[in-house]
C-alpha cells in the first residue's frame, strides 16, 4: 500500500511521525469514521438520536462534545434520511468539529469565517451562537457558494451574511471582528483516507505555495480583528510548513499571542522541532490530531489572540 504514495511524501511522514509512521499509513488506508453534529437549534440531542437509532444507525459520543457523535454503523446513506433533510444534523469529519468549539463565539459576537464553503464550520458557529450575533462567511470560489447557501438554509442558520471575495483583500470591508475562524485552504494531505486520489496529486511544491497563501490570510485576519480578538487557525494538513510555521509567523512577525487550547487534552501537541530543526517552544500550545487516534483525517489547529 505504500507504493501508492510518492517517495518524497513517505519520507516526510517518516520524518514527522517517526515510530507512528506505520499507524499513519494504515489509517490512510482505512475508511475514516464520519461524525454527525446534531443541530441543537432545531432538535434535541436525544430525540435526534432515538430517531436515527430506530432506523439502525449506530452512534457513539465523541469525547469532546455532547452533541457530536461518531457514526459507527450506517445502514443507508445517512444524508438521505428525513432527519438530514430537516437539517437536524451535519455530516462531517469528527476532527473538523474542533475549531468552532475552540473559537467558542458568544451570542453578541461579530464573527468572520474566512474560508467558509461548504459551511460545516459556519453552521456550527451559528449553532454555538444560538442564531444570534452575526457571522460574515466568505469564500473566494463562486462555484462552492451554492453548497454554502444550501447548508445555511438546510441547517436554518439565520445569522449569516455570505460574501464572495478573496479573504486576503478584505481591507475595505468596513467592520472589525471579535472572532475569526480561518479554516485555511491547504494541501489537504491529511485527508488521504477520504480522498485517495490525492496520493497521486500531491507535490513537494504544494507546501510552500499554500504556506504563502496561508500567511497572507493570517495577516489579513490580524488586520480584521479587534484588539483582544481571537483567531482560530486550522488545516487538514500534516505539514508543519502549513501549520506550526504559519503560527510561528503569526506570533513572531505579526504580534499575535498563542493561547492554550481548551480541547487540548483530547489531542496531541504542536511540533516544536521538525525536519531536523528546532522551532519556538510555544508551538507546543498548538493542537494536532493524528489520523489513527480517532480514525479521522489528520488535523491541526491553533488559537491566537491579537494583543
Amino acid at each position, binding site marked *: 500500500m505504500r507504493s501508492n504514495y510518492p517517495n518524497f511524501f513517505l519520507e516526510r511522514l517518516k520524518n514527522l511521525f517517526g515510530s507512528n509512521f506505520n499507524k499513519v499509513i494504515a489509517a490512510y488506508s482505512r475508511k475514516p469514521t464520519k461524525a454527525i453534529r446534531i443541530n441543537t437549534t432545531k432538535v434535541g440531542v436525544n430525540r435526534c438520536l432515538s430517531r436515527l437509532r430506530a432506523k439502525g444507525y449506530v452512534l457513539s459520543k465523541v469525547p469532546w462534545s455532547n452533541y457530536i457523535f461518531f457514526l459507527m454503523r450506517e445502514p443507508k446513506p445517512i*444524508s*438521505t434520511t*428525513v432527519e*438530514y*433533510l*430537516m*437539517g437536524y444534523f451535519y455530516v462531517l469529519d469528527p476532527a473538523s468539529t474542533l475549531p468552532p468549539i475552540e473559537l467558542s463565539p458568544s451570542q453578541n459576537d*461579530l464573527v468572520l469565517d474566512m474560508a467558509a464553503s461548504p459551511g460545516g464550520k459556519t453552521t456550527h458557529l451559528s449553532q454555538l451562537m444560538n442564531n*444570534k*450575533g*452575526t457571522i*460574515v462567511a466568505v469564500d473566494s470560489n463562486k462555484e462552492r*457558494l*451554492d*453548497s*454554502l*447557501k*444550501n*447548508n*445555511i*438554509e*438546510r441547517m*436554518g*442558520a*439565520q*445569522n*449569516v*451574511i*455570505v*460574501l*464572495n*471575495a478573496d479573504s486576503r483583500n*478584505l481591507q*475595505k*470591508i*468596513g*467592520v472589525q471582528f471579535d472572532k475569526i475562524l480561518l479554516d485555511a485552504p491547504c494541501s489537504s494531505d491529511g485527508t488521504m483516507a477520504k480522498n485517495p486520489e490525492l496520493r497521486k496529486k500531491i507535490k513537494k511544491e504544494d507546501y510552500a505555495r499554500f504556506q504563502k497563501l496561508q500567511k497572507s490570510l493570517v495577516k489579513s485576519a490580524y488586520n480584521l480583528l479587534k484588539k483582544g480578538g481571537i483567531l482560530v487557525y486550522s488545516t487538514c494538513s500534516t505539514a508543519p510548513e502549513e501549520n506550526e510555521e504559519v503560527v510561528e509567523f503569526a506570533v513572531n512577525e505579526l504580534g499575535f499571542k498563542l493561547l492554550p487550547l481548551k480541547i487540548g487534552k483530547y489531542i496531541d501537541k504542536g511540533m516544536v522541532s521538525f525536519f531536523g530543526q528546532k522551532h519556538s517552544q510555544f508551538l507546543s500550545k498548538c493542537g494536532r490530531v493524528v489520523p489513527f487516534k480517532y480514525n479521522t483525517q489528520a488535523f491541526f489547529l491553533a488559537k491566537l489572540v491579537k494583543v
Partner: protein
Amino acid sequence: MVLKQVNPREFKWMDSILPGVTKLFSGKVVLYDDESKKVFLASKGVYNVLSKLHIPVEWIGVFFAEVGEEIKFGFYVAEKYSKFGKKRVVVTKFGEEKFLYRRNLTKKYISSFSNDISKGDIVVVTNKFNEALGFGKAMFSSEEGIKEGTLVKNILDRGFFVKH
C-alpha cells in the same frame, strides 16, 4: 445582490396567499433584492453589520421568498408556518417518502388536512411530527374532501437538499 430595507407593508399582499404569513416579519428587518426578486429577513444586529459592509452580498441567513411571476416561499416559511396549523396537509409515512422525491400526493398518501383549504391554495405539507417537508398546491378543498387523482401538486420539498 443589492439588498434594500423595505417597509414590511409592501408585502402585505402575501397574506392573501398564506393567511398571516407576514406575522413572520415580526422583530425582523425585511430586505429585498430588486434584481433577483428575493426577499430576506435579518435580525437588527445582522442588518446593522450589513449596512456597514462595503462588499456586495451573495446571500443572507433567512431566505424568505422569491416574488417573481409566482411567489415561491422558502423552507424557513414552511417550517414556521407549519406551527400555525393553517393550510396544512399531513402525509403518511409513504407520503413523506414520495413527496421528498418531488412527487405529487394522491389520497393514499394523505392522512389529514386542515379545514381551511380551497382549491388552488398553497399548502404546507408536513409529516406526522408536524415537520414541514415543503409546499404544495391543493387540487381539492377541505369542504369537498379528498377523492381521486392528484390532490396536492409538489411545489417545493426538502428532498432538494439530497444532492447537497
